Structures are given as structure tokens and as C-alpha cells.
């Protein structure tokens, strides 16, 4: 009997990965989603190397120039190159989205799993609290925070996070309730496993799938909310390259200098669409029953 | 000798999946006579459900019926259009599935569901006549207080009662053939006995032929007149119920019968069939049972099984069959 090699140990996982790849290739929309996000990520990571313009560099002599060879997407009313601002805007918005979704998903999931697993009065308490937070309009909260602490990206992140975590708590709790009843959890208990062991080794890995799908879809939603807050002035402040802010600025020039608002708008559209397609695709890929029927 | 009601000839059904082509049915042939209860028995994966669904043309992608004929009263079902099939499905051939809860609409009252079947096939006009017919049918399957049950929803009934409602719905149109796919598998033994008794009485009262699909040889022994045994997508033996149980010839049939624990005698050990069911993407060459067969020879793997007629009713697909009476 020889020791198992790396290949032996991962053969099943490699098979599953290959199958996933096959499914993605077959489904055009999922593929488009993945590619779009991939491109966005690439742009975000390599932003400084793609453009030689500084996104906050104001050149008043160049203001409101139409798209041309030197400024691919034109310039805005401060003379800043729109293309660079968009690239850096993608980077900024992605960072904001990852920050929010990351924190909110982790926090909400852990709370939801504990709540769902233990049930009882504590569960009731957590869920009603979540309901309250969720019912709160994020706009009002953002305004309140901005009024007290001043408007900034960081404060808008706080406002959005506070109202967003209940989504994950709810989702995780629901998934936990169904996993909790499954035989293999009983079997673990029969073996003598403690609750914490069961939660981390059995419950969490089995509820991760819908959380991941939700997180992917939420990336798009969060970008929309963050952009909206910046649009009304509660988030990013000039001259930060934030897509919503750029639309807000460009709004005043829509008639004669349409490119200032349109390109940032299109970018947001593409990003959100990309995340939605990717999220839907992930849902299909991760659902075991759906996987088999997609063949 | 009257022509059979249903004749399946050389049926081939394949499933084209990512991992390869699953040859679910490879040259399946058998027939069902009028006025008999016919059993198709086999273990998981042998293709018995696929056969029934192929007969009803209910196979969907990635599956496809790639060959053969299914003659119902002389007409080949595989050549009919979808419109013509609609007239036959539910009307002349009805199918009862394993899980009645999944087949009943949870949001519709029982009475309405049964009535719907009658209305679709234009058997009875709506109104008082329809209502009376629905109650009559429910009474026929021995449901208690049918006048009250018509007002119930499926979740208010027990599993056994739901299965009876299914049967009622399926025989309401006076079909000539009733296909029952694992009708008693999810039910308690006592309820099973009731359902089988109802099926038998259906045959008497309504002159309907019944095709039962199951893995339970006990159910077959109790209810069927004739049966066929399937293994890995092929029919291995056919015969009337007495000759097959008393004189099974195919090694698989013999193995199966020996593996059943007998309720009426005590045993120390159960005989098992070595090996396991083959993968139908790359099935064994020739006779699909040969890797597990103690009597297999070169011709079995090279030339496959040969269909041999033992009596007018008893057929076996094997080159090396032998007499093998069950030990008493």
C-alpha cells in the first residue's frame, strides 16, 4: 500500500472542476459574465499601467474635450481624462464592493448560522434585530452619518454595511435550518461531536454555496448603492474617481458634452450586468441537481 | 390466440450525457396480453422505469429513443404525432407513479383533480353527472367517505389514500392499460397489501391490463400473472409467474431469488451475487451479466446472449441456462 499522491487526493476535485469548466463554456451568458468580471478585475489591478494620465490631474486647458486620439473617452469639466478616471473608478468601486460584501457576508453568515443552529429565543431575538436593521432606509442613515461625521466613501461604506448584513443572516439561517435536519448532522452528533465542531465542519461548508451566489450578485447591487450615494454627494468627494460622482458631475453637461456622464454610466451598467450574470451562473454551477440536468 | 395489447420490440433508449452515452436500454423486447397483470422486475438501474417512460414517450433530452417499436393495439407509438399521443396518454394508457404526493396538485381539492382528468378526455360533461362519477370512482378504490374526500386537499390524506386517489384518477378514463411504476415502494406493508388488492380488483372490475414495475419480487409473486426480469438494460427472462419462480433458468434470476430472505424459513446466510451492477456507459461486451456469472463462457462475452424458447410462455436469454429449482 503506497502513500497517496497529490493527484490521487485531488482526482475527484479535478474532475468536478473540469465539469464546471465544461458547463461554463456551454452556456454563453455565464461565460460572458465571467469574462466581463475578469476584464474588470484586470483593469482594476493593472490600472496604473494602463493609462499614463493621473485621474485627478486637472488640466483646465483640456476641459470638455470630445473623445479623441489623445483622450480616448474625452475629458470632463476639470480637464481630467475620463478614461483614466473610469479605470481607477472601477478599481475604487470594486474595492468598496469587496470591503462591504466581504465584511457583511462574514458577519451576517456567522450570526445567521449560530442563530439557525441553536434556535429558540435567541434565534427570535437575532432575527427580529435583523428585521429592524433591514427595514431602515440606507439613504436616511447615510444622510444622518454624513451630517454628523461628514460625507466620505468610508462613511458611505458604514451606512451601506449596517443595512445590508441582515440579508446574509437571513440566508445563512435558512440554509442552516435545512442542513441541520440532515442525517449526517445526526450521525456526527451520535459520534459525540460538539456543537461548535458540527457548525464549522458540517454546517458552514454546506451553506457556503448560496452565500457565495448572493455575494456575487450583491457586488453589483452594492456598487449601485455606493454610486448612488456618491451621486447625491454623500459618498465620494471630488476629485476622487468614483463612477457615481462622475455621473453627477456630468449631469450638468449632458446636452452638449454627453460623454462626461455617459461613459461612467455605461461602465456601471456593464459591471452590474457582469456580476448578475456571474451570480446566476454560479447558482447553476453550484446546485448539484441543476448541474446534472444542465448536461 | 389474441394479439397482445402492448408489444415492445427491440427497444433502444440512450442517454447522451457529459460522461458518455448511457445505453440504458439495449434491445428490449416483451409483450403484455389483454386482461393480465404483467410485472417488470429488476434492480436499480436495470432500465425498467426507462422502459415504461419510453412506452409513454416521456423520455426527454438528454435521453432519446433510438430504435425499436412499441406496438399498442397494433399501432407503433413511436411513429405517432404528439396530438395522437395525447389522445392515448391518460385515456387508453395511464400511468401511476411512485410518489403520489409529487403527482397530485397540492393546491387543488381531490374532487377537482379527478374531475379534471375526466373533463380533459371528454368522458363526462360537467355538473351533477360529473360529481357523481367522481364519487363513484373514489368509492371503487375503497376510499372511506368519498363524498367528504372530494373536498379534501392532498396534504390532508395519508400516503396510502393519496396513492388510491392516483389510481382512481388513472382508471377513471377506463384505460386499457394501466402502468404502475413502483406503486407500493414508499408505503407501509399493511397499506401495500391494500393497494395491491385494489389493483387486482381493478383488473377484474374494469377489465384493464396492468403493467407493474417494481424491484420487489414478493409484490410480483402476489399479484402478477406474467413477468419479465431485467438486468442492465436487457430482458433476461420472461415467463408466467409460476414457472419463473419454480423454475428460474437465468443465473441472474436464480441469484436474485436466492438473495431474498425468506419469511417462512430461517437461514444462516444469504446467497449473494458477486460483483456489482455494470456501468451502462461502457457495459460489458456481449451478455451484460457475464462478468458476474459463474457459468459464463467465451461465447457469452463474444457473441452475447441468445433468446431461447423453453415453453410457449417461458423465454430465457442465456446460452448456459440450467434447471435450477428453488430449494424448498
Amino acid at each position, binding site marked *: 500500500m503506497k502513500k497517496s499522491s497529490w493527484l490521487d487526493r485531488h482526482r475527484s476535485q479535478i474532475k468536478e472542476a473540469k465539469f464546471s469548466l465544461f458547463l461554463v463554456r456551454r452556456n454563453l451568458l455565464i461565460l460572458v459574465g465571467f469574462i466581463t468580471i475578469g476584464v474588470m478585475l484586470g483593469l482594476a489591478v493593472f490600472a496604473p499601467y494602463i493609462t499614463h494620465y493621473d485621474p485627478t490631474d486637472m488640466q483646465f486647458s483640456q476641459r470638455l474635450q470630445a473623445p479623441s486620439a489623445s483622450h480616448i473617452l474625452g475629458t470632463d469639466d476639470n480637464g481630467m481624462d475620463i478614461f483614466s478616471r473610469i479605470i481607477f473608478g472601477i478599481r475604487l468601486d470594486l474595492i468598496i464592493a469587496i470591503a462591504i460584501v466581504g465584511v457583511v457576508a462574514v458577519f451576517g453568515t456567522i450570526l445567521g448560522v449560530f442563530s439557525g443552529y441553536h434556535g429558540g429565543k435567541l434565534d427570535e431575538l437575532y432575527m427580529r434585530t435583523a428585521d429592524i436593521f433591514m427595514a431602515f432606509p440606507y439613504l436616511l442613515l447615510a444622510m444622518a452619518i454624513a451630517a454628523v461625521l461628514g460625507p466620505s466613501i468610508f462613511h458611505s461604506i458604514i451606512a451601506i454595511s449596517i443595512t445590508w448584513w441582515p440579508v446574509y443572516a437571513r440566508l445563512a439561517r435558512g440554509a442552516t435550518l435545512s442542513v441541520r435536519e440532515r442525517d449526517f448532522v445526526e450521525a*456526527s452528533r451520535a*459520534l*459525540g461531536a460538539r456543537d461548535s465542531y458540527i457548525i464549522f465542519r458540517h454546517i458552514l461548508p454546506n451553506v457556503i454555496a448560496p452565500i457565495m451566489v448572493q455575494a456575487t450578485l450583491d457586488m453589483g447591487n452594492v456598487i449601485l448603492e455606493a454610486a448612488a450615494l456618491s451621486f447625491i454627494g454623500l459618498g465620494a468627494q471630488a476629485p476622487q474617481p468614483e463612477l457615481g460622482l462622475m455621473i453627477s458631475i456630468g449631469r450638468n453637461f449632458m446636452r452638449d458634452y454627453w460623454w462626461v456622464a455617459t461613459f461612467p454610466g455605461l461602465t456601471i451598467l456593464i459591471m452590474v450586468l457582469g456580476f448578475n450574470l456571474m451570480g446566476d451562473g454560479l447558482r447553476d454551477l453550484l446546485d448539484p441537481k441543476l448541474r446534472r440536468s444542465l448536461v | 390466440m389474441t394479439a397482445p395489447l402492448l408489444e415492445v420490440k427491440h427497444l433502444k433508449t440512450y442517454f447522451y450525457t457529459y460522461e458518455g452515452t448511457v445505453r440504458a436500454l439495449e434491445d428490449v423486447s416483451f409483450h403484455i396480453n389483454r386482461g393480465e397483470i404483467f410485472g417488470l422486475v429488476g434492480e436499480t438501474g436495470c432500465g425498467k422505469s426507462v422502459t415504461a417512460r419510453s412506452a409513454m414517450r416521456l423520455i426527454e433530452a438528454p435521453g432519446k429513443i433510438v430504435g425499436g417499436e412499441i406496438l399498442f393495439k397494433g399501432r407503433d407509438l413511436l411513429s405517432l404525432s404528439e396530438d395522437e399521443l395525447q389522445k392515448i396518454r391518460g385515456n387508453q394508457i395511464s400511468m401511476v407513479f411512485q410518489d403520489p404526493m409529487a403527482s397530485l396538485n397540492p393546491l387543488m381539492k381531490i374532487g377537482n383533480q379527478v374531475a379534471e382528468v375526466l373533463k380533459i378526455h371528454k368522458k363526462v360533461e360537467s355538473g351533477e353527472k360529473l360529481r357523481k362519477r367522481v364519487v363513484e370512482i373514489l368509492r371503487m378504490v375503497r376510499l372511506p367517505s368519498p363524498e367528504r374526500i372530494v373536498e379534501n386537499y392532498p396534504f390532508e390524506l395519508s400516503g396510502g389514500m393519496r396513492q388510491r386517489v392516483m389510481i382512481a384518477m388513472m382508471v377513471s378514463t377506463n384505460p386499457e392499460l394501466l402502468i404502475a411504476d413502483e406503486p407500493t415502494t414508499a408505503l407501509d406493508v399493511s397499506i401495500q397489501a391494500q393497494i395491491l388488492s385494489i389493483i387486482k380488483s381493478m383488473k377484474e372490475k374494469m377489465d384493464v391490463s396492468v403493467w407493474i414495475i417494481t424491484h420487489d419480487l414478493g409484490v410480483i*409473486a402476489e399479484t402478477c400473472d406474467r413477468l419479465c426480469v431485467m438486468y442492465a438494460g436487457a430482458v433476461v427472462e420472461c415467463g408466467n409467474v409460476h414457472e419463473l419462480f*419454480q423454475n428460474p433458468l437465468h443465473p441472474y434470476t436464480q441469484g436474485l431469488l436466492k438473495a431474498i430472505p425468506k419469511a417462512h424459513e430461517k437461514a444462516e446466510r444469504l446467497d449473494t451475487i458477486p460483483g456489482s451492477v455494470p456501468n451502462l456507459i461502457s457495459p460489458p461486451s456481449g451478455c451484460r451479466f457475464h462478468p458476474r456469472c459463474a457459468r459464463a463462457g467465451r461465447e457469452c462475452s463474444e457473441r452475447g446472449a441468445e433468446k431461447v424458447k423453453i415453453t410457449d410462455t417461458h423465454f430465457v436469454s442465456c446460452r448456459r441456462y440450467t434447471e435450477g429449482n428453488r430449494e424448498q
Partner: protein
Amino acid sequence: MNHHFPLLRLRNVKKYFPIKGGVFGKTINFVKSVDGVSLDIDRGRTLALVGESGCGKTTLGRTILRLTNPTAGDIYFDAPPQAMEEMDRLNQGVRDGYAREEDVKRLRELDDRYNLSSVTGKEQMRLRRRMQIVFQDPLSSLDPRMTIKQILSEPFRIHQRASREELETTVIGLLESVGLKQEHLYRYPHEFSGGQLQRICILRAIALNPDFLVLDEPTSALDVSVQAQILNLLKDLQKEHELTYLFITHDLSVVRFISTKAAVMYLGKIVETAPTEELFNNALHPCARLLLDAVPVADPGLRREKQLMEGDVPTPVDPPSGCRFRTRCRFAEDICSTSEPLLEEAGTDHLVACHLYGRIRESAHQTPLPRPGL
């Protein structure tokens, strides 16, 4: 030490599930799943627990393992006769009111050691190693996201019984003992057949060398030929490791093969218990007789008109008064609705809970299962 005493002794075990209702969620009624069960299971033997769905057999199995806590009653595990006598004496003292303080203390000590209903903490962990369970559906009993190696390592990991290096070797040894291979270590449950999965579940249950195994319909979801393999395996394992089984099933033909003693349950109560052969040859309770009669026999030569049980299985929420089976019993008389029959001896080791069994026996036209050759 003399080990010929029952491994498990159940005394009047009850499990009620509260039904909440009303605006404030008060408890309005109970589902009396297990309503006073007393049983003895001998060491190294198999007791079959038979009954229809809803009779409480699964709940009883889970209660014994403390997967759910009993509402009342005692479950004594591996208690030698002297300890049992002492506990009975002390319990009687408590009931009659003359127990002294040190008696109560002593009783608690004994309970903590032998009474599964009351153990907690470390003792419970220790006892968990000695009793395990195998479920009906092997696929849902295994975490779909874990490899076989992780699944089989779990018992060792939880009880810290093996080092990491030893784990792989130990697990491979386990796999090979039931005909599986090293290459199966890193595969996932969905890649296996039902029979293979059930073997893995059984391996997981015996990994830490338990004394007692609850088998809850372990072969009901399997094909006939696979069932035969698993049943043979269970018998072999029992001999090899001196295991004691509680075999829960609704399939009476399996009962005859696997068990030495059988108990029939109906709506939370035991209605008959006897050595298996005796039950098959001479079942006395109408429920047992009807169950035996209803079993489909794989022999068309033995077809017969069956006595069918009337009606459907009732729910254990509001069981019928007196004898619970009377609503489905052909022989029911007045006394059956006014007074609940208790288990009484009708033969060696043969207990029945029926007021009329003697008369039924005389008037029966045939024994439950027909003999071949008639």
C-alpha cells in the same frame, strides 16, 4: 466477571413531542411517539423492532442514543445485576418515601454510571463511543462535501483516538475489510453506489469498537442483492466484534434472518415480544398477525386471501382509549376500549398485550405465514 446480563434495559421509556398552538405558542397537546416501552436486549444478540411508520420505532432508537432526550423512563446500559438490584431497591425507597439522604446520593451515583437517561458531559462522551447508529439512507447520512477519508476519520478525530499519520493507514484498513479500496479514500459520497455507501456508514459506526449498534432500516433503501450483502456483513461483524444490535425494520422477512428476538410496536407501545422463531410460528397479537400476513412472499404458490388491515395508520397524537389497536382490529370487544391491555406472559419469553389473545388463538383458521408445500 459474569457478562451474561442484558446489555440494554429499557424501563417505561417515554418520548413525547409537544405541539404548540394558540396565539402565545403554548403547548396544547403531545405527540406520544414512545409511550412506555420496556425491553431487554441481550449482549451479542439482535433484537428486531418491527412496526409500521409512525409507531415510534425510529424515535425509540434515537432516544436510546440520546439523539433526543427521553421525556421519562430509564435506559440502563451495561448494568450488572447487583447494580440493577440496588437501583431498583433505592428507586422503590424513593417512591415510597423512606429514602435517606445517602441513599439518594448513592442512587444518583449509580444513575450517572449506568442510566443513559441521566448521563451528561464526559460520561456521555464515553458512552457515545460504546453505542452508534446506522441510518436508512446512506447518501444523506454522509456529508456530501467531505471525502471518504474525512468521513471515516471523524470518529477518531472527535475522540482523539489516532494521530494524523496513523489515520490514513487505519482508514485504509477499515475500507479494505469490507471490500473497498485505497483509491476510494479521496472520493466523494455521490460517486458511490448505495451498497458501498452503506458499508461506509457501517464502518463509521464501528470505527471505535462500540458494543451496541442501532440499525434503523439499514437495508430498506437498497436493492435485494445489495441488501443480502449488507445483511451478511452485519452478521459477520456481529460475530467478529461481539456486537449487540437493535434492528429496526418494517420488513418481516429480514427480521427472520437477522434477529433472535423480536418486538412489535404499535403507536408507541410494545404489543408483542418473543423469540423470532416463536413470533413467526405463533404470533398472538392481532397486529402482529396482520403484519406477518401482509408481507409479500416471493412465492406464487403461497398466494392466499389475506386478511387486510382496515383503515390507515393513525397518528400518535390522540391514540384510541384502551387498546390502541382496537380501531383496526377485527376482534375488538368492549373491554378493548375501556381498559388498556398490559404485556403479559403467554409462553417462554413470549409477552403479549391483548385482552383476547387466547380466544383469537383458538379461533384462528391458520397461522400467519403459510407453510410451503401446503
